[in-house]
């Protein structure tokens, strides 16, 4: 019993959504009832979201991870493992496959420390990098280390961080700002949320170091209002850091002063763009403006401003503690260090991973991600969200590297990686992303505002079975024009999902336009529902559930669907206990 050092319960958004708070309470009650005095602590996300809720038991033999934990599982874990010293099978999770190939720099503390405890962060060398920088390094030496490390912006654009800092550092001004961009807007990306929820002090330390390097005294964290838990933990971290003299006036007794405020975003994807983000902090509509002047010379309130993404800043303390060389030892020639990816979609192990740059996509999907759900064939990997593209299965050996991915038409992006299988329609995916960017376009540039709308209308027509000759060519031509004639990253990248899918999945577009068929069985207007008479047991459930009474019993003891009346809602297919309802596209049996 006394061998148990601590029990960790994963309480990030994903854990909480999976019921981790209830599990945690049950664990507390069970331990109290057993009179067992074992410390329980909340931790952030370890990344194995597919196993939530997760409970780690740490004893002298190391860490045992239990996943998909239920209340009954807690009873057994307490009785057998915590009180009895024996491992409990059935819920134990092998972590080697998932964690073994990862290199954790940004996520080194996520899922291990209590994010609301400054002491735990400091026990793992937290704020050591800031203290060393303040006491032993000149600001330009800090900039130099960042340059040597080769760190590039992790928000998507990949601009060299050290160079960016040097621009703001050389500006003469009485007031400068550091902004942490936590407006994580890409659907399918949640790494910034996990870092803020799991290790908020790391981001604050990175901001303070950046501020020291460029000579700023004020900082803002611009974080999505949709991330209430991240905001709460960040507030707590700022208060604790102030109390410990790690933020505020005369940090650690030195002459350096720096303080941080939180600005909650109000929901606008375009605010991920730095000039739009600045407009939003100033209280205006978040519309980008022309650059130059760049924020480094004229940013917030017209002052020199340095903006970095959460993940970029989270790398900074590690780089200062271990040196630029140690960081640059990971990765490829042009892409150094690691990158965090949010793995989701039709993959077995969805979650958050951190891998050295240069790892082939195949290893991420099949080794770390465990392969495709139900062992279906991989069709494509969507990277970079609405700004990115779809990499087909044939290019799955492409290494994760800024330049190599750009050559495929996709981008590293902020790190969303959505795995798609053969039941995903690529035309539908392109339509989905265009729908997103079209609605999020701020409306300033004509090509972005009107062009994305026209592209979306064309895609909607194709998905509805009304595609025409020339649609494909029009999409590609308009796509290139939008890229060339838009002011900011949103418009410049919005056509990417369409351009990559028309290039790699042309056949699928042709099937929609010419054959009026959706090979993946997704686009409803192109589908026909059909009951296989040999499988149908004539139970009548589908007929009772059908909202438009389009199903009736036929002579011969089976049911048939009236295709004229059918609205293709799919209810019959969902309810049929025998799997007799088939979804067909293209050639349909009479």
């Amino acid at each position, binding site marked *: 019993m006394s061998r148990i050092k601590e029990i960790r319960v994963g309480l990030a958004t994903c854990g909480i959504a999976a019921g981790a708070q209830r599990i945690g309470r049950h664990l507390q009650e069970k331990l109290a009832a057993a009179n067992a005095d074992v410390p329980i602590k909340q931790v952030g996300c370890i990344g194995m*979201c597919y196993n939530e809720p997760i409970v780690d038991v740490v004893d002298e033999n190391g860490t045992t991870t239990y996943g998909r934990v239920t209340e009954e599982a807690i009873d057994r874990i307490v009785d057998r493992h915590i009180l009895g010293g024996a491992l409990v099978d059935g819920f134990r999770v092998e972590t080697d496959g998932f964690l073994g190939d990862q290199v954790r720099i940004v996520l080194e503390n996520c899922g291990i420390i209590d994010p609301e405890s400054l002491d735990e962060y400091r026990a793992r060398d937290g704020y050591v990098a800031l203290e060393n920088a303040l006491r032993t390094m000149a600001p330009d030496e800090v900039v130099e280390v960042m340059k040597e490390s080769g760190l590039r912006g992790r928000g998507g654009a990949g601009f060299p961080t050290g160079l960016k800092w040097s621009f703001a550092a050389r500006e003469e001004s009485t007031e400068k700002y550091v902004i942490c961009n936590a407006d994580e807007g890409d*659907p399918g990306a949640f790494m910034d949320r996990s870092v803020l929820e799991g290790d908020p002090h790391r981001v604050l330390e990175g901001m303070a170091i950046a501020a020291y390097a460029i000579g700023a005294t004020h900082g803002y964290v611009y974080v999505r209002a949709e991330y209430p838990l991240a905001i709460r933990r960040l507030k707590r971290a700022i208060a604790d850091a102030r109390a410990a003299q790690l933020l505020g006036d005369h940090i650690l007794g030195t002459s350096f002063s720096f303080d941080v405020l939180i600005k909650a975003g109000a929901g606008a994807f375009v605010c991920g763009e730095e000039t739009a983000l600045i407009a939003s902090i100033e209280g205006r509509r978040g519309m980008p403006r022309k650059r130059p002047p760049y924020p480094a010379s004229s940013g917030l309130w017209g002052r020199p401003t340095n903006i970095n993404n959460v993940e970029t800043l989270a790398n900074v303390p590690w780089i200062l503690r271990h040196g630029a060389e140690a960081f640059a030892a990971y990765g490829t020639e042009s892409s150094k260090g690691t990158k965090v990816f949010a793995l989701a979609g039709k993959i077995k192990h969805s979650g958050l991973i951190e891998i050295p740059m240069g790892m082939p996509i195949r290893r991420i999907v099949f080794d770390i991600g465990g392969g495709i759900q139900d062992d279906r064939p991989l069709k494509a990997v969507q990277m970079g969200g609405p700004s990115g593209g779809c990499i087909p299965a044939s290019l799955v050996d492409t290494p994760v590297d800024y330049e190599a991915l750009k050559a495929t038409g996709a981008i590293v992006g902020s790190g969303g990686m959505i795995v798609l299988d053969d039941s995903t329609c690529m035309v539908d995916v392109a339509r989905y992303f265009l729908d997103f960017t079209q609605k999020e376009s701020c409306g300033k540039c004509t090509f972005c505002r009107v062009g994305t709308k026209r592209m979306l209308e064309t895609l909607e027509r194709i998905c509805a079975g009304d595609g025409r000759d020339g649609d494909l060519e029009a999409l590609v031509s308009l796509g290139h024009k939008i890229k060339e004639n838009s002011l900011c990253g949103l418009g410049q990248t919005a056509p990417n999902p369409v351009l990559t899918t028309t290039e790699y999945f042309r056949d699928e577009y042709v099937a929609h336009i010419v054959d009026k068929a959706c090979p993946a069985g997704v686009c409803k207007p192109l589908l026909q529902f059909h009951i296989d008479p040999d499988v149908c047991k004539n139970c009548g459930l589908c007929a009772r559930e059908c909202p438009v009474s389009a199903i009736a019993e036929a002579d011969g003891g089976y049911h048939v669907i009236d295709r004229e009346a059918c609205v293709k809602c799919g209810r019959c297919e969902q309810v049929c206990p025998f799997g007799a309802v088939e979804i067909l596209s293209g050639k349909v049996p009479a």
Partner: protein
Amino acid sequence: MGLCEERRPVLGVLSRSDKGGQAEREPSSLPRTPASVIPLLQQIQEAEGFISEDAVERVARHTGASASSVYGVATFYSQFRLRRPGTHTIRVCEGTACHVLGIGVVLDRLIEHLGINVGETTADGLFTLESVRCLGCCSLAPAVMIDDETYGRVTPDSMVEILAKYREDES
């Protein structure tokens, strides 16, 4: 700037009682500059549930921004709603992972079950249906959030059961 600020009367901005009504109002502690427009709108929506015409006027008076520019901000950002929401807000995640894992059929069922479209409120004022771009719970896709509670791996049937629980609690 300084002069204007003095001439503006200090009027109540924030509603003390929740959910609107003719409430007593207290001044906001936020600085009286246009930079406070967004945080003030957020505070008012938190207290009153939505941004009324009157709220736009109050924000304009407090910050010195024109009412039209406050309205411009309120309509630019998706967080702000200009109509009173129902007791519970259902946010259906339309993130990429949810999209490919079938949130579409879940949303279809919700629209049919509640008899309203996205952006509308049921006649009994119980539910408002909204769609959001990504809740960031992609590993639990498809996901739906009701008020502050997130539900993962939902199906059309499980959604209907979940809503039934909210109705029970209400009656």
